């Protein structure tokens, strides 16, 4: 990031005024300015992460004392059928969401890029789902999905029989994916819109003089130059999807028949419904490892498709 690099070279001017006293004077001032942050970092990050390491190799149900059990939790994860099932669900929701979100987010970005009448209003509308409260909109979606709800009522005239969206295992995950897409696609749009706006207009002008069609321009100019933004949105998007909670809590509670229980929701179930804190902590480290793995794989693969100017 350009500003980040700039910061490295910024040197405090008072260092010129008082060269010898500089380090110490700043250190004490810095401690004062940083004191609340350091306290927060310790209480909200360092201590919890350390505790999570300990919990991962322990057994604890909150009431009895913590018991050290070594790698037992991780061995249990490796043979836990529900864990593998939630892993499949996680893969399903992640792939489904990434495809839908990227395609629709890109379409929305291409639409919102144009200077048309009412564009500011359109942008606001497109961003509304992203900012509103998950709990509120997920409840609305839950009712919209009901057998006699508005979605089935609209599908009826198209000749589609009422779909048991949230009550059948094969429909619940698609329903959840559709809702999360509605809620989060404009996050992709914002990133991709910024990417689109940074492509110089001359590229399009020059290529159209050379007789390139719209479609050719899209494949040869827009897509390659947008690839860094696509890559970035893909990485962060997957990290966010892997940690989804609210819509599943409200709409399905992991059901029916565990069909929407993702790994993150499984952590919640084990930790806070079954009070197996140690096992939940071990699962959370597995989630962390999966996030790292996903990110690493994409980082390696990016050489093949991401084009940096």
């Amino acid at each position, binding site marked *: 990031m350009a500003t980040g690099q700039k910061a490295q070279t910024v040197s405090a001017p008072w260092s010129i005024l008082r060269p010898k006293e500089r380090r110490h004077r700043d250190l004490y001032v810095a401690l004062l300015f*940083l004191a609340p942050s350091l306290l927060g970092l310790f209480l909200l990050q360092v201590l919890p992460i350390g505790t999570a390491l300990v919990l991962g190799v322990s057994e604890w149900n909150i009431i009895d004392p913590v018991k050290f059990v070594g790698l037992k939790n991780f061995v249990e994860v490796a043979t836990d059928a529900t864990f593998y099932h939630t892993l499949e669900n996680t893969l399903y929701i992640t792939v489904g969401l990434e495809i839908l979100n990227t395609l629709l987010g890109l379409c929305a970005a291409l639409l919102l890029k144009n200077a048309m009448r009412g564009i500011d209003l359109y942008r606001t509308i497109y961003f509304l789902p992203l900012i509103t409260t998950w709990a509120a909109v997920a409840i609305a979606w839950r009712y919209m999905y009901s057998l006699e709800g*508005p979605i089935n009522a609209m599908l009826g005239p198209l000749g589609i029989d009422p779909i048991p969206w949230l009550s059948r295992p094969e429909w619940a995950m698609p329903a959840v994916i559709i809702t999360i897409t509605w809620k989060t696609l404009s996050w992709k749009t914002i990133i991709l819109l910024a990417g689109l706006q940074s492509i110089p207009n001359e590229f399009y002008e020059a290529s159209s003089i050379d007789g390139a069609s719209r479609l050719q321009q899209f494949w040869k100019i827009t897509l390659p130059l947008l690839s860094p933004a696509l890559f970035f949105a893909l990485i962060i998007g997957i990290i966010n999807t892997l940690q989804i909670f609210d819509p599943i*809590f409200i709409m399905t509670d992991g059901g029916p028949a565990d069909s929407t229980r993702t790994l993150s929701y499984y952590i919640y179930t084990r930790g806070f419904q079954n009070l197996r804190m140690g096992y939940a902590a071990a699962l959370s480290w597995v989630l962390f490892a999966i996030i790292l793995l996903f990110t690493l794989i994409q980082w390696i693969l990016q050489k093949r498709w991401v084009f940096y100017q």
Partner: protein
Amino acid sequence: MKLRRRETISLQLVTLLGAAALLFPFLWMISASLQTLQEVESFPPIWIPEVPQWANYVDAVVNYNIGRALINSAVITTVSVVGQLIVCSLGAYAFSRLRFPGRDTLFLLFLATMMIPHYVTIIPLYTMVWSAGLIDTYTALIFPGLFSPFGTFLLRQFFNQIPISLDEATLIDGGNHWHIYLYVIMPLSRGGLGALGIFSFLGIWNTLFWPVLVINSKELFTLPLALAMAQGQFVTLIHIQMAGSVIACVPVIVVFLMLQKQFIASIALSGMKQ
């Protein structure tokens, strides 16, 4: 790119269709919140209520705990956002303007904690809150919102754009770092503070997971928690629940309309948070 007239019209049409699809759940929410129970349960669904039942909102606020939850959410969010802005701006000032041994290492540690998923820290955080006897308190709801490594990082980026010569001028005039922070950096960083402000506002106002864990009693429910818990309790009262949902969304939309530019700019800048 110059567009032909026909293209412009079809583009506008597609954009309009997309907007309608995205707006539909909100419209349905509002419509359902103004219907009678009989109307909201009828099939085929009634799209526009015959007589808008504004009393549903009064009912939700007075009889179904939404009023209390609204106050709780407002208090918790205000305290957390103001606190987070203060804590993060002080920290960001140190990273942006002061030189001390280990500064870059410490900053790297701040960034590194952003990579750790929420799920890793939330279990220990819960056990800490539990051990401290803070379950079911405002403190448990507020203190995790007071600090954010992301916020420190974001504000540092904004602070770094302010010319250092302004610091020098303040120092020459006999000011100290506190003066620079308060009278130079903060007033010049309204954009950054607005960006972090809306991020943390949305994050804290909308959060459900943490309140689900640490709050049991109805008196302390935040709005998302009250809405989620109403699911089981008043499962048939769709119209009341939808009134509650509208009430939860309105403040978010108002704040978003005020700070939309900062919000979009900082997502594009940092890409964090969904």
